[in-house]
């Protein structure tokens, strides 16, 4: 396909260095996701056993694989046969115009759609090879393993400490108080917030600034030691400085987590993600390396969207 090195260097270099030392990290996906050249809505990746593929075809491991994901809200169909594989230790950005289904897809990944009574999800979503819609799977455990950060910072109206400690506490992740305190400190440190709040851990989390609140929410999400973090437009309520800090943080977190981020800002997608998926009207139109996606999109709709002709 397209030349990897064309158009961007930094992100690619980062990927190479940090995640996929064995070069050409995205190569296998070229096979897995042949970008459709014709407009028909569903861009289904060739269905191979991705976990097997990941191990057999190269260094890329997929944290999560999904096939034929359909979502209905009552009569309305919101997602059409979405098939998407999400690599580990990388950032996957979901972009697309409003109402295209990217948030819906994101909320399928930790079954947050379950709380909407009229939502019906079909298809197969496997987290580390385990079907997350398997009735025997405990949804609470799933949500602990798949952390989520929401559009609007939503700390609990409790102290900063309690915000972070809540998840570990209900899941019994720590044995002692000191262990819990340590975990809270680690999480806050990892979210880049500890220095700013270490003197007021017991003041309400709602008293922080918007950007700090969002980082608190990220700390809260990583405190349950998830495998994966879902971010639903995490910077849309933040000012540019706070956005920059959070983006930096996302880039750091990529070393340890698999991150899926929904964003409306294409610049943000370009800045923070390694791979990008473009959704339109409930269809996954195209999914590729971010650099490739922005420099040489395969689909006309993707091109129109990223060049700002609609959306």
């Amino acid at each position, binding site marked *: 396909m397209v030349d990897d090195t064309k158009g961007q260097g930094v992100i690619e270099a980062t990927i190479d260095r940090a995640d996929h030392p064995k070069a050409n990290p995205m190569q296998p996906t070229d096979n897995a996701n042949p970008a459709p050249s014709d407009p028909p809505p569903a861009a289904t990746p060739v269905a191979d056993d991705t976990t097997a593929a990941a191990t057999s075809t190269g260094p890329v491991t997929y944290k999560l694989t999904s096939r034929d994901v359909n979502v209905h809200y009552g009569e309305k169909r919101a997602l059409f046969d979405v098939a998407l594989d999400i690599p580990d230790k990388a950032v996957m950005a979901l972009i697309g115009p409003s109402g295209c289904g990217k948030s819906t897809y994101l909320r399928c990944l930790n079954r947050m759609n379950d709380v909407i009574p009229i939502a019906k999800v079909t298809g197969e979503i496997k987290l580390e090879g385990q079907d997350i819609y398997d009735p025997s799977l405990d949804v*609470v455990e799933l*949500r602990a393993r798949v952390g989520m950060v929401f559009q609007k910072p*939503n700390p*609990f*109206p409790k102290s900063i400490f309690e915000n972070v400690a809540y*998840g570990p506490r*209900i899941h019994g992740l720590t044995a002692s108080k000191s262990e819990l305190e340590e975990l809270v400190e680690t999480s806050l440190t990892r979210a880049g917030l500890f220095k700013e709040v270490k003197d007021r851990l017991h003041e309400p989390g709602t008293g922080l600034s918007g950007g700090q609140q969002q980082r608190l929410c990220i700390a809260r999400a990583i*405190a349950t030691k998830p495998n994966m973090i879902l971010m639903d437009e995490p910077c849309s309520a933040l000012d540019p400085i706070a956005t920059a800090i959070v983006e930096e943080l996302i880039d750091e977190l990529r070393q340890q987590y698999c991150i899926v981020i929904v964003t409306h800002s294409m610049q943000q997608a370009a800045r923070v993600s390694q791979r990008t998926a473009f959704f339109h009207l409930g269809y996954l139109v195209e999914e590729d390396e971010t650099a490739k996606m922005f420099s040489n999109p395969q689909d006309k709709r993707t091109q129109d969207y990223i060049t700002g002709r609609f959306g």
Partner: protein
Amino acid sequence: MATTDLPRAEAPAGTRVDWHSNATKRRVKRRNWANWRLQFYGLASIGVATLLLCLLFGSLIHTGYVAFFQTKVALKLDLSSDLIDRENLAESNFRKITRNAFKAYFPDVTSPRDTRALMKIMSSGAQYIVRNRVIANPDLVGKTVTMQVPLSDPYDQLYKGVIPLKIDGLGLDRITNFRRLQNRNVVVVENGKSFVKTDVILSEKEVQDGTFNVILNEAFKAFFPRDRSLAYLEILGPDAVDTLKAYVEANPSKIGQTVSLNIPIAPLYDQLQRTGEAKIRNPRFKSDQELAWYGSLKERGLLGTVFAWSLFTNPDSRFPELAGLAGALVGTFLTLMVCFLLSFPLAIGAAIYLEEFAPKNRVSDIIEVNINNLAAVPSVVFGLLGLALFIGTFGLPRSVPLVGGMALSLMTLPTIIVATRAALKSVPPSIREAALGVGASKHQTIMHHVLPLAMPGILTGTIIGLAQALGETAPLLLIGMNAFIPSIQDMGITQPAMALPTQIYTWADSSERGFVSKTSAAILVLLCFLIIMNITAVILRKRFERKW
């Protein structure tokens, strides 16, 4: 993309709006006038509402404030006499001690009859007040102590100026009758006594029969030809017949003729003629003698009013000077406690299920509609239900706070359910998402986050529901919670009791003058509790109001 290629629709080039034309000016004027009118209607409504409220409170305070004071007489009690049983204080003859102390002010009253009349000035409960005081302070025994005991109701009211010493003895119609005579200039005063100058027909037959009253009646009838009530005959003095008789005996020659005579009139009318008003002793006082005794007490400075703590510490009584609200307050407290303990958990449970778990279908819709219906059911119906079901079918005792609280909780349940649902609904979805997002179960999300955040709203609704229940009278009357409870010693949720509103009802029904002000005072106490509860609700709401 396609839409951007379309040619932009041009705005229609209309005529310019003339903002200074007369039509526009008229429109502006009309608009301003309408604004002003709307504002005025609002202000006027608020004014009327405030005025009515002020009237209500004004009249209550005006009638009720005297009940917060009690006239007392200072007694010098000799607690050293052998009437005191030192071994068993409660068995001492406090009746005699108290009466002796009171009688000591009137050494000249000796006859048993006068003594009985004298004792009516002092409250009949005085001896118990003295007894309780002495039992509480046993070291008073052996000393002579001064204690203040209440005056009986009529004298209490008289001292506080609630009732007058003298009242009008003649009704308006009687006075009108007399004015008619005055206007005819037939009323004359001779030697300090009033007479009516009357033309009397001394018919032979009546004189022979000796029915002089018939002659007088006929003569008076001439003044009031159309009055059939014969009320005017009251004007005739008790000595009128004798006067006529004496005249006929002195002038037998006049029999059969019509003569003009001065007929004496009744004392009240005489008083009206000479002083312009006809006053009599207030019939609440038995005799002038009693009033004289009272006057002498007052003159000697033995009387005085003090704040009536007894209004809050005494249980109910047949005597207004002894009656208090303690029984009603305890009863209301117990009733509301039962009501709260029943309705609070039930309502929260129902609200959580309906708001968080119930599927949105026909059944839950019907339940929702009926909860709102329940809130609109007249309270007397709940009383009937309580009577039929709790007392009739379940066989629970009558008049008890347990049943009262159960009946009232039927009323408060819907209020609290609706308030709780609103409070749960107002917790933003982002908090639920946050909790679910870190892997909290539904139960944890509700118990750890949603319910605590909704709690101020729930408590506000609960307090308002209980405040409604506090003032509810009909259900309590129906289950018999207007019992007469003269002691608060053994009150409990399964013992007969009364509540504040039923106490008000009972007092309002009593004929003693003191209960008029007691009723208003009790209403003020009830309103105070209502205001306190509602202010608490407002403070809670303000204090915990969150901006999301």
